[in-house]
């Protein structure tokens, strides 16, 4: 018997699961989601899983704000019996140079105009929010109390279970090996477990998005890059907000579980699919901890790992279809902040695929922006 689907979603991270849920919630039947390993095995489950609205472009602010509003009531919306462990105690973002402080002023004006409750403050204000922070060299800081951290495994699980209950067929350990295109139309998806006939395919393959796009003959300007992260032993709650320094490429958050997770960007990281780890990373992170949060040096390191960013030239995602290729959609290139944008992304993608008016006009995030050269680069990335 022929294996058929109305839509095949490629990728079992939170983006794919959110799209699947939103399609099924709108009544679409025969949705199939394929995942090469298990859910959240890729970038979703490897991420720092911070969620923030403090962005430097209007589009990222709007997508992030809409997503946080959904995350705030996700368990109820998805009828999830567990908690997604949303710790909503803010993000404290530090500026270390006058130029950075000026950028922050512009960011705050933009964010406040979009309804984000963010405050600009001096070093003393930052110290009041995170008392164990060394602020000697801090020039300015911004704080938004609605930002925070969510358990990425449980949030993905919540979407997946709600999608399954609405009829979505989630197939684990199913790897896409090809996409059949005929006369400019998607016809189906080849997998290691057979062929699935489908008129619509959605590329939500995270760090492998460029490989999946190429299977449909689509060339997208993204690359994947390793980012490393570590976790400490759990201790009593002592740090409410995520602390971020774009200047150092450093972030540090205490999870509700009590453990601290932290990471640091390294411009020399391999730009391929390597998810290994390095000793140098530990030295780089701990140098930043000694400088900014020295009280944490007494904590024990429990684990280090890494995941992949899927990076676009402007650090904003690519959402939408491709002119001349009917039935191909993508939600890719999230550049390290896909987890936090997943709720609204899934909704918008479902609306686009079903021909509805999207809740937020994302036409400026289409693939054609790179040809037109209309890039607005997101300045606030780690």
């Amino acid at each position, binding site marked *: 018997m022929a294996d058929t689907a109305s839509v095949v979603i490629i990728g079992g991270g939170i983006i794919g699961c959110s799209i699947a849920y939103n399609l099924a919630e709108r009544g679409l039947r025969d949705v199939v989601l394929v995942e090469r390993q298990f859910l959240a095995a890729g970038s979703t489950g490897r991420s720092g899983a911070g969620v923030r609205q403090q962005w430097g472009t209007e589009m990222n602010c709007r997508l992030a704000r809409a997503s946080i509003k959904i995350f705030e009531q996700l368990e109820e919306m998805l009828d999830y019996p567990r908690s997604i462990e949303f710790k909503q105690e803010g993000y404290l973002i530090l500026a270390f140079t006058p130029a950075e402080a000026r950028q922050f002023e512009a960011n705050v004006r933009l964010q406040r105009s979009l309804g984000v409750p963010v405050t600009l403050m001096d070093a003393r204000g930052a110290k009041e929010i995170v008392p164990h922070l060394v602020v000697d060299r801090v020039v300015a800081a911004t704080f938004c109390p609605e930002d925070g951290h969510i358990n990425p495994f449980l949030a993905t699980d919540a979407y997946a279970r709600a999608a399954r209950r609405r009829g979505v067929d989630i197939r684990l350990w199913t790897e896409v090996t090809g996409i059949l295109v005929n006369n400019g139309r998607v016809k189906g998806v080849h997998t290691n477990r057979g062929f699935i006939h489908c008129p619509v395919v959605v590329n939500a393959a995270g760090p492998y998005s460029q490989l999946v796009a190429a299977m449909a003959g689509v060339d997208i300007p993204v690359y994947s890059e390793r980012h490393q992260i570590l976790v400490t*032993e759990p201790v009593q709650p002592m740090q409410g907000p995520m602390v971020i320094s774009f200047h150092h490429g450093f972030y540090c958050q205490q999870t509700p579980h009590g453990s601290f997770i932290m990471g640091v960007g390294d411009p020399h990281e391999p730009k391929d699919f390597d998810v290994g780890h390095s000793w140098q990373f530990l030295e780089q992170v701990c140098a930043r901890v000694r400088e900014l949060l020295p009280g944490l040096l007494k904590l*024990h390191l429990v684990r*280090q790992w890494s995941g992949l960013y899927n990076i676009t030239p402007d650090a904003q995602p690519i959402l939408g279809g491709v002119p001349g290729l009917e039935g191909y959609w993508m939600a890719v290139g999230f550049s390290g902040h896909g987890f936090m944008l997943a709720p609204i992304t899934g909704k918008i993608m479902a609306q686009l695929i079903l021909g509805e008016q999207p809740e937020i006009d994302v036409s400026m995030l289409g693939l054609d922006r790179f040809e037109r050269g209309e890039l607005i680069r997101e300045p606030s990335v780690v």
Partner: protein
Amino acid sequence: MLTNPQEVIICRCEDVTLAEIRQLIREGYRSLDELKRLLRCGMGPCQGRTCLPLIAQELAAHGVPIAEQRWPTFRPPTKPVKLELFAREDDPDG
């Protein structure tokens, strides 16, 4: 001897009980990797040295042969160490 699964701790690092593991297996999860991510068993300081073999037996009892189970990735460090060991006097980034 403890016989109530709610009182049997399988993962000592993260306080995960046998009842919690059996509940998720009943709900359809079929791998150590999934159980680890949803319950944290194996994410603690011992990285699953104690609990993962026990959970593998539970999965086997529910129809997933041990030979077909994939072991979660073991991450450095082998034993927890204080972060200060890595904070060198000479900052690697100057």
